[in-house]
């Protein structure tokens, strides 16, 4: 304990560029997370709609697709993609990518990382959204049909607005998981918060490359971890606030989608 709170072990934090370097790495994680979140939500909605399709074979094919991707470890998907994408594609990507895009795009492994995050999370989110859609009483769809609304119109005007509202808490906890999972890209050699943390622990103590102040690994990673805790905690609070406001506005307690693993967790 005294090792943990000893001020000498915390000096590194404000020495030289350490803190800025750490935050720069964290920014890469956030950039990857935001892009993957948007892609996963869009692809997840598409998959969910296919999953509740009127055609049995579309349902079956989408169901298998979703079940395979959400039952594989994310790091497995990421490693596979990064190993199997040919080098020529990676160099082609690097030549193609314009310089004005955020730093995260620079790594040749960036497409593999985002693709893996999207494949996995869109499958999980599709399953959450399907549960949200199917949790509605059958009467809703029947009433919409009785009013003469077409399939797509009843989906867009009646089913989705109610169904999607129910899955907000579950989706937000999945997005938090996604945010945590961006650290996995360090394994496929993308420079982000964890890699920067390791660089700090390795070089900070050196009088040549660092600032000459030792940066103990435990402390550096604790700070990195707390960065994630702060952002994710804020996200979960925001989701709860939205829920409460919605309840006050509409006067109805929105029934939550429950019984899916990812309301609790999945990484």
């Amino acid at each position: 304990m005294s090792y943990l709170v000893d001020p000498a072990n915390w000096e590194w934090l404000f020495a030289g560029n350490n803190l800025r370097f750490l935050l720069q790495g964290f920014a890469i994680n956030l950039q990857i997370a935001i892009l993957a979140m948007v892609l996963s939500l869009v692809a997840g909605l598409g998959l969910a709609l296919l999953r509740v399709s009127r055609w049995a074979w579309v349902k079956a094919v989408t169901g298998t697709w979703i079940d395979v991707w959400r039952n594989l470890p994310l790091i497995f998907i990421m490693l596979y993609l990064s190993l199997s994408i040919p080098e020529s594609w990676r160099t082609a990507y690097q030549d193609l990518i314009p310089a004005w895009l955020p730093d995260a795009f620079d790594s040749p492994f960036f497409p593999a990382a985002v693709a893996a995050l999207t494949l996995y999370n869109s499958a999980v989110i599709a399953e959450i959204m399907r549960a949200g859609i199917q949790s509605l009483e059958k009467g809703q769809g029947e009433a919409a049909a009785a009013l003469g609304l077409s399939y797509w119109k009843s989906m867009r005007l009646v089913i989705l607005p109610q169904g999607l509202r129910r899955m907000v808490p579950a989706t937000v906890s999945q997005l938090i998981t996604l945010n945590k999972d961006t650290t996995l890209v360090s394994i496929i050699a993308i420079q982000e918060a964890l890699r920067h943390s390791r660089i700090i622990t390795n070089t900070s103590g050196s009088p040549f490359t660092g600032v000459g102040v030792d940066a103990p690994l435990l402390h550096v990673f604790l700070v990195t971890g707390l960065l994630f805790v702060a952002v994710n905690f804020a996200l979960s609070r925001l989701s709860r606030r939205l829920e409460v406001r919605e309840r006050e506005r509409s006067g109805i307690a929105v029934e939550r989608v429950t019984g899916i693993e990812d309301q609790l967790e999945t990484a």
Partner: protein
Amino acid sequence: MSGLWEVLVRHFPQFLSGFVVTIQLVAAAFVVAVVLGVVVAGLRVQPLAPLRLAGTIYVEFFRNIPLLVLLFIAFAGLRRAGLDISRFAAGAGSLGLYTAAYVAEAIRSGVFAVGQGQIDAALSLGFTYPRTLRMIVLPQAIRTVIPPLGNLMIAMIKNSAIIGVALALADDLLKEARVINSRTFQTNEVFFWAAVGYLILTVGTTFVVRYLERRLVIRR
């Protein structure tokens, strides 16, 4: 196609040992997660505010921190700090600590599902608070909690893949696949069989959980 089977036959012992190590990791972590999860859930429903706060801090910290960061802290961090922690203990322990936060939340919602009325009834009968938790609430809560616990088990199987590749803390299925791949360069074939291994575990657990759910869940 023949290449696919050849890879499996030639490297079967390695695939199998990786598969077994993954199961061992998950089993050890599951024990840690459930024991600790029950303790933390107990803290979160205590009448004493400081104890509740401790439970809340535990849950919010471990639920919002990336598992990979936790692994770095648990293994490399503690080693540098002079604590001689074994590879397996660091890996399975981190996974257990991480999942315990989710287990605690699952148990807590199970406890709330039991209802305040029953707790009040037990207290009025002269049961002490811990005794009420142990004899009235937990036996019912455990049953409500089985489906989410099963889902956490699936999540643990998937999360365990991080342990081997990140810091080489264990020679689990993904780690073995990576080693075989670096020798054969038959990436598609090797990862196909590793995927089969993981799907056997995750989809298999799904079926077991569904079966238990049908048998045990109390209809309310």
